[in-house]
């Protein structure tokens, strides 16, 4: 009951957020230099052609009317028609979204797999060489542009050793895991560095907490102390961070998707911007916003199941 209430409240709070997002993106795209009509008809089109196209797209209407239409149509689930793709925006996005979602979750999963154990090793060896080594290596991951890492992975692991395919994204679940492994690694190198950093300091902090000392004083086995008492508590702040970075990850996929030839929404967004595809940009942004809000909500819910102090309200 309380949880449902909480979810309702959060959903309610999202309404003004989305409205703000809609205003920002609407204004922003209309300030983009370059005309969608030219983007459609090409540089060679005549003025009359352009005028006709603008008329057809409703770009000649006053701004407020356009915005009103945008809002009302969006509420009805109609995001308009993509100029670039000549198809309904919702359809275009839904075709591409699963790939990006898969890639993002995959990367997050890999990051946790990499960062989790290593954060423990680093925290337990705080200040000694394993700690220094782990932190330095992750720092490298943190400072390398993904397009560079991606290319190195592709060149050596895919093209030369042929362990992995160069591009594509597979049809079955297994094939996807295989195809998207390298792009996920490229993303995960960055994300895991952030998670590792946070988790490590959280673990160090928790290791010194009084309740962990108390757990030791109770004579619990080490495994239980680390697993039940330390990890759970250390995870709390990391989960928030993870939620936050999933948002960035999803928009960050646009470079990854370009390098690895993965047809996801990130690349689509880039194409949409370069084609001045107003409806598609707007639709994608809103989709991002909804997804990210849902992820935030989920992390908060997860956190509140983890941390009883956060329950209710």
């Amino acid at each position, binding site marked *: 009951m309380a949880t449902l209430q909480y979810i309702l409240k959060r959903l309610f709070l999202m309404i003004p957020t989305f409205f703000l997002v809609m205003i920002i993106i609407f204004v922003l795209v209309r300030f*983009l*230099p*370059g*005309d*969608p009509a*030219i*983007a*459609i*008809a*090409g*540089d*060679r*089109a*005549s003025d009359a*052609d352009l005028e006709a196209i603008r008329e057809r797209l409703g770009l000649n209407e006053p701004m407020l009317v356009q915005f009103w239409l945008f809002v009302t149509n969006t509420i009805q689930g109609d995001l308009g028609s993509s100029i*670039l*793709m*000549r*198809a309904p925006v919702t359809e*275009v996005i839904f*075709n*591409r979204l699963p790939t990006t979602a898969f890639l993002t979750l995959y990367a997050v999963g890999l990051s946790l797999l990499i960062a989790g154990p290593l954060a423990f090793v680093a925290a337990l060896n705080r200040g000694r060489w394993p700690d220094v080594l782990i932190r330095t290596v992750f720092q490298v991951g943190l400072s390398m542009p993904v397009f560079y890492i991606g*290319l190195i992975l*592709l*060149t050596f692991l*895919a*093209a030369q050793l*042929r362990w992995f*395919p*160069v*591009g*594509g994204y597979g049809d079955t679940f297994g094939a996807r895991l295989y195809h998207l492994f390298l792009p996920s690694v490229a993303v995960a190198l960055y994300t895991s560095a952030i998670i590792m950093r946070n988790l490590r300091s959280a673990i160090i902090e928790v290791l010194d907490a009084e309740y962990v000392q108390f757990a030791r004083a109770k004579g619990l086995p080490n495994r239980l102390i680390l697993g039940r008492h330390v990890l759970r508590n250390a995870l709390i702040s990391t989960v928030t961070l993870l939620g936050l970075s999933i948002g960035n990850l999803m928009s960050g996929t646009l470079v990854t998707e*370009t*390098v*690895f*030839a993965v*047809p996801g929404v990130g*690349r*689509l967004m880039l*194409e949409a*911007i*370069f*084609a*001045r595809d107003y409806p598609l940009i707007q639709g994608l942004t809103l989709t991002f916003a909804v997804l990210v809000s849902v992820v935030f909500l989920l992390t908060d819910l997860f956190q509140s199941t983890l941390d009883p102090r956060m329950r209710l309200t």
Partner: protein
Amino acid sequence: APAFSQERGGVLNFARYDGSNLIDPIYADRNPDIWMVGSLFDTLLRPSADGNSVVAGLAEDHSVSDDGKTVSLTLRDGVTFADGTPLTGEDVVFSLDRAREPDQSPWSGLLGSIESVSAEGNAITINLNNPDPTILSMLATFTTGIVSKAVFDAAEGATDQEKSAAIFASGGPGVGSGPFYLCGFEQGTSMKFCANENYWRDGADGKPLPYLEGVNFQIIPDDATRILKLQSGEVDVAEFIPFSRVPELDADPAINMNLFPSTRIIYSPINTRETRADGSPNPLADVRVRQAVNYATNKDALIGLVLQGAGKPMTSPLMAAATPLSTNPGPLYGYDMEKAQALIAEAGLEQGTEITFTTLAGSADDSTIFAALQQMWAPLGINLVVEQVDGPTRGAKNRSGEFDIHTYGWVNDVNDPGQVVGWLGYTPTANAVGTGWDNAEFNALYEASQTEIDPEKRAQQYADMQAIYAEAAPLLFMYETPFAVAVSASVDGYVQTPLGNNIFEEATVSR
């Protein structure tokens, strides 16, 4: 070559730099669409091997009346659409009428001379308003590809465009008569062509073309990744190879590095208006300054830096050497720094004059060109500064004249110089590529050439236009580049035409 043991079957995997959105003879407006139309939709006539004339296509015969106002064609017997339904005169009339309808086809201007099209059995008659020297070329151009009227009539959708989109989305044989039909499509991701078993042309072994079972396209926008795909054997063909990688791939025995001759030219429109958009005087309005920068540009060096030598300087100011009626008067504005400096002195250009060079953001070639020009023009006292914009912004600036110089490229869509010359020099089309150059003599010559059916007279008109244009230099004339396509050694027979069209009809792949 007589190759009776032609290998048949197999699927060709092709890595593209960008995807098609809608391959329809009249709605194809971006190169990734246009260059695929021919594989799905056959035309009445076909370009000849040398590209300078036309040969029989769906129409086995054609003739033009003496007054140049009537074209008669005879449809080949027994040609069908890919699903086996017969292709009739009615389909031809429907297709051509559709293509010349100004309200729907962006290319209708190319067929502006047509007054009416009619069919009686296999006999097709096209009546023209006025003689049109380009009409036969047009009938061999993608936009006149023949579509099935029946399929269009049956398709869902209120408008022609909606019908086209619906047909495209559902794919399958039936709408076209090209060597392939569309049998799979995921927008922005992949596309599949399957062989049309009812194609009318026969291969060297006497059986119908194409040899391939099909072609699978993958879209890989990143240059380096596309190459890696080819090197790892995941694809057989990778197009748009950056020229910097050409020598490396050329050296690879498993790969044939093709440089297909093209009609692509790379040039820079120069704003010739007296004042800039902000009202300040435009130093480039002076023809001597424009000539000077042309002389000061070492095109060979540029070709070396940008293309690794895989290109040649423009010889005709208005078109690629491969375009019909190109005069090829030899190197245009060969590098001559003394002459350039003399012209600058004559024009009295102030030292340190700032000129903005607008480039496409993210384009390595543009950055290189800019860096090179900056150094090359420094001796002229020109301080070249860069302004990076994205495609649509560049388009808008070109249109409104808010630029000094920017880079542009061109590939012919039609096998006739009319299109490119209209674009580059004829003021009413687009202010002579946005340069604002306006030459009455040139414009008159161009208008006359559009209806001149005497080949010799027309050639003279084009020669005159090229001379005028070269002298006035509204462009920085740079270079022509080939189409760089890397093909696995196991592939044979794939070509990209000078117009950019991908021809898979006679391609084979041995596994």
